[in-house]
C-alpha cells in the first residue's frame, strides 16, 4: 500500500508552450472556419431570402393545424424578420456557446461542492481540477451580458416592444401574460430589468461561491487542519441550495424563453443534466490529460472508474429527462406543446440532429461505458468523453437555433468554427487558472482515503 510520503504533493501543473500552441492552433482553425462561415452566409443573401419565403408558407400551413395562437406567432415572425442577416446566426452561435461553456464552468464548482457536501474522499486528488473550471465564470458573465445587449433582439422574441401593445397588430396575449417574468417592475416592453437582474445576480453568486470555495481550499494548503474542511462543507451546502434554484431559473431565462410560447416544467433539470454530463466529461478529459503528463500519480484506474460511473449514470439521467419531456408532449399531442418538437423533427435542418443527439448522448455512452474495463481505461474514456462534449453541444444547438433562426440555421462552418474557437479560449483560461496554484489539496483530511481507494 502506498503512503503519503511516496507522492509529490507540491506538484504544479506546468502549462507548457507546446500545449498552448496546440490549443491556439485549434482555436485558429476554429477562427478560420468561422470566417469562412461568415463569408458563405454573407454571399448567400439572395438564397437566404428565398428560404425565408419558403419558411413563411410552411408556417402558414402549420398555423392551420395548430390554431390561432400559433398563427399569431407565425404571422409576427414572418412579418418582422423577412430579411435574414448573417450576424443573427453569428449571435445565435455565440449564445449557444455562452450558455454551454458557462454551464460547464459552474458544473466544475458544483461537483467540487458535491464532494464536500457528500463528505466524499475518493476524488480528493482532482478537487483542484474541478474548481479550476470556475475560472471561466467571470468571462462567461461578461460574454453573456455583452451578447444580450448587442443581440438580445435577435435572440429573444419577447424583447419586441409591439408584442405588448394591444392595437399594434402584433399583440400577443400569451407573451403579454408572461411579460412580468422579464420586465417586472417596469412596464412590459421596456427594459427587461428583472431578466437582466437575474442574469447578473446568478453570475454574481456563482463567482462569489467559486472564489470563496477556492480561497478556503488554498488557505487549507498553507495552514492545514480540518477546520477548513468543515468550513468548505458549510459553504458548499449553501452553494448547492442556491445552485439548485439558480440553475433551473437560468435555464428558463437563457434558453426556454427563446421559444416564448412554449414551456416545459422539467426544462431546468434537463439543461442541468446536459451541463452536468458535459462538465463531468470535461473534468475527465482534463484529468486524463494531466495524468498522461505525469501529474496526479495517486489518481489511478479506481478513481477513473468512479468518475466514468458518474458519466455513465448521468448520461442515462439526461436521457431520462429528455425522454420524459418528449414522451408526455408526444402522448398528449397538445398543439402549443408539440410545436416545439414539430419545429425540430419536421425540419430538414434539424430533424437528423435529434437522432444524432440521442445516439451521441445516450446510445454511445450507454453501450460503450457499460463494461468495467471501458470505465477503467483512458482510451475508451477519451473517445466517449469527446463525443459526449460534442453531443451536448448538439443538444444546446437544438435548444437555441430552431427558435432563433428557424430555417436559416443548421450546422455549417460557422457552428463548427465558433465551437472550436470558443472552446479553445475556455480551455486556455481554465488551464491557466489550474497552473497558477497547487494541483493537489495537500492538507485535505481525506487524502489518505484517496490513496487507498479501491473498487
Amino acid at each position, binding site marked *: 500500500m502506498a503512503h503519503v510520503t511516496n507522492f509529490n504533493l507540491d506538484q504544479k501543473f506546468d502549462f507548457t508552450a507546446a500545449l498552448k500552441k496546440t490549443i491556439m492552433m485549434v482555436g485558429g482553425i476554429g477562427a478560420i472556419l468561422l470566417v469562412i462561415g461568415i463569408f458563405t452566409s454573407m454571399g448567400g443573401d439572395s438564397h437566404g431570402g428565398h428560404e425565408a419565403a419558403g419558411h413563411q408558407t410552411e408556417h402558414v400551413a402549420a398555423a392551420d393545424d395548430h390554431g390561432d395562437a400559433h398563427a399569431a406567432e407565425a404571422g409576427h415572425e414572418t412579418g418582422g424578420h423577412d430579411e435574414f442577416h448573417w450576424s443573427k446566426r453569428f449571435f445565435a452561435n455565440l449564445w449557444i456557446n455562452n450558455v454551454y461553456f458557462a454551464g460547464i464552468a459552474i458544473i466544475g464548482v458544483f461537483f467540487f461542492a458535491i464532494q464536500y457536501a457528500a463528505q466524499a474522499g475518493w476524488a480528493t486528488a482532482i478537487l483542484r481540477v474541478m474548481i479550476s473550471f470556475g475560472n471561466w465564470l467571470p468571462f462567461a458573465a461578461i460574454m453573456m451580458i455583452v451578447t444580450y445587449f448587442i443581440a438580445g433582439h435577435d435572440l429573444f422574441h419577447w424583447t419586441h416592444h409591439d408584442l405588448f401593445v394591444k392595437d399594434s397588430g402584433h399583440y400577443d396575449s400569451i407573451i403579454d401574460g408572461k411579460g412580468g417574468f422579464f420586465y417586472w417592475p417596469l412596464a412590459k416592453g421596456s427594459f427587461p430589468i428583472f431578466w437582466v437582474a437575474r442574469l447578473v445576480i446568478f453570475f454574481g453568486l456563482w463567482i462569489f461561491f467559486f472564489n470563496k470555495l477556492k480561497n478556503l481550499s488554498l488557505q487549507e494548503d498553507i495552514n492545514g487542519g480540518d477546520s477548513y474542511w468543515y468550513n468548505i462543507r458549510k459553504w458548499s451546502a449553501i452553494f448547492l441550495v442556491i445552485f439548485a434554484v439558480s440553475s433551473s431559473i437560468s435555464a428558463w431565462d437563457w434558453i426556454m424563453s427563446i421559444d416564448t410560447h412554449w414551456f416545459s416544467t422539467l426544462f431546468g433539470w434537463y439543461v442541468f443534466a446536459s451541463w452536468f454530463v458535459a462538465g463531468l466529461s470535461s473534468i475527465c478529459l482534463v484529468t486524463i490529460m494531466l495524468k498522461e503528463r505525469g501529474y496526479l500519480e495517486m489518481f489511478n484506474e479506481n478513481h477513473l472508474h468512479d468518475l466514468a460511473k458518474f458519466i455513465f449514470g448521468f448520461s442515462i439521467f439526461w436521457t431520462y429527462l429528455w*425522454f420524459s419531456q418528449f414522451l408526455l408532449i*408526444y402522448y398528449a399531442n397538445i398543439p402549443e406543446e408539440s410545436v416545439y418538437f414539430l419545429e425540430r423533427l419536421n425540419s430538414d435542418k434539424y430533424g437528423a440532429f435529434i437522432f444524432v443527439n440521442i445516439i451521441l448522448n445516450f446510445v454511445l455512452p450507454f453501450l460503450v461505458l457499460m*463494461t468495467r474495463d471501458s470505465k477503467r481505461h483512458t482510451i475508451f474514456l477519451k473517445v466517449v468523453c469527446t463525443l459526449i462534449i460534442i453531443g451536448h453541444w448538439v443538444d444546446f444547438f437544438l435548444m437555441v437555433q430552431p427558435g432563433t433562426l428557424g430555417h436559416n440555421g443548421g450546422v455549417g462552418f460557422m457552428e463548427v468554427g465558433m465551437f472550436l474557437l470558443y472552446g479553445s479560449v475556455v480551455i486556455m483560461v481554465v488551464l491557466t487558472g489550474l497552473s497558477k496554484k497547487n494541483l493537489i489539496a495537500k492538507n485535505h483530511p481525506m487524502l489518505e482515503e484517496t490513496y487507498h481507494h479501491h473498487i
Partner: protein
Amino acid sequence: MERDTNFILGIYDDEDVLKDAVTKVRESGVKIHEVFTPYPVHGLEDVLGYKRSKLPIAAFLFGMLGTCLALTMQVLMMSVDWPMIIGGKDHAPLPDFIPVTFELTVLLASFGMVGVFMVSSNLKPWAQPRIFDLRSTDDKHVMAIDIAHNANIEETKIKELLQTSGASEVNNKSFE
C-alpha cells in the same frame, strides 16, 4: 456431489497478516479451499487469484431478454392482435412502448441476476451452510485448506506453513 469433509483451518487475527499468508500459502503450492472473514477485506480476491464474477454478463442478457419480451408483447397486443389507435398515433407507437420496455428490462435484469447468483452460489433455501469456525463471524479470519485436494503435500507440512505465516491457531475440522 460428495463434499470433502476434512479440513485444516488457519486462524488469523489481522487482515494484513492474512493477505500475506494467503500469498505465501499459494506460492508454496497449497490450494486454499476458502477464506472466511468477518468483514470484506479489500484486495483479498486479488491475492486469492479469484477471477471477476460473470454476473454482469448474465444481467445484461436477462436485460436484453426483458427488452425483447416487452417490445414483442406490446407490438403483438397493440398492433397485431387488436390494433388500437390511441391519441391519433400509429398502430405501433414506439415512444409509448418505452416506459413498459424499460420496466421489464429492469425487472428481468434484476430478477435474473438474483436467480443466477442464488444458483451459482448454491444458495437454495434448504441448503445447509457449513460453518468452519464460528469466530469468523466475530473477529477472526479463517483460512480453510482441503486435505483431500492437497494429497501430495503432507498434513504436518501444511500446518507448519500456516504457523510460520502468522496464524494464531491451526486446527483440524471435520464435517460428517
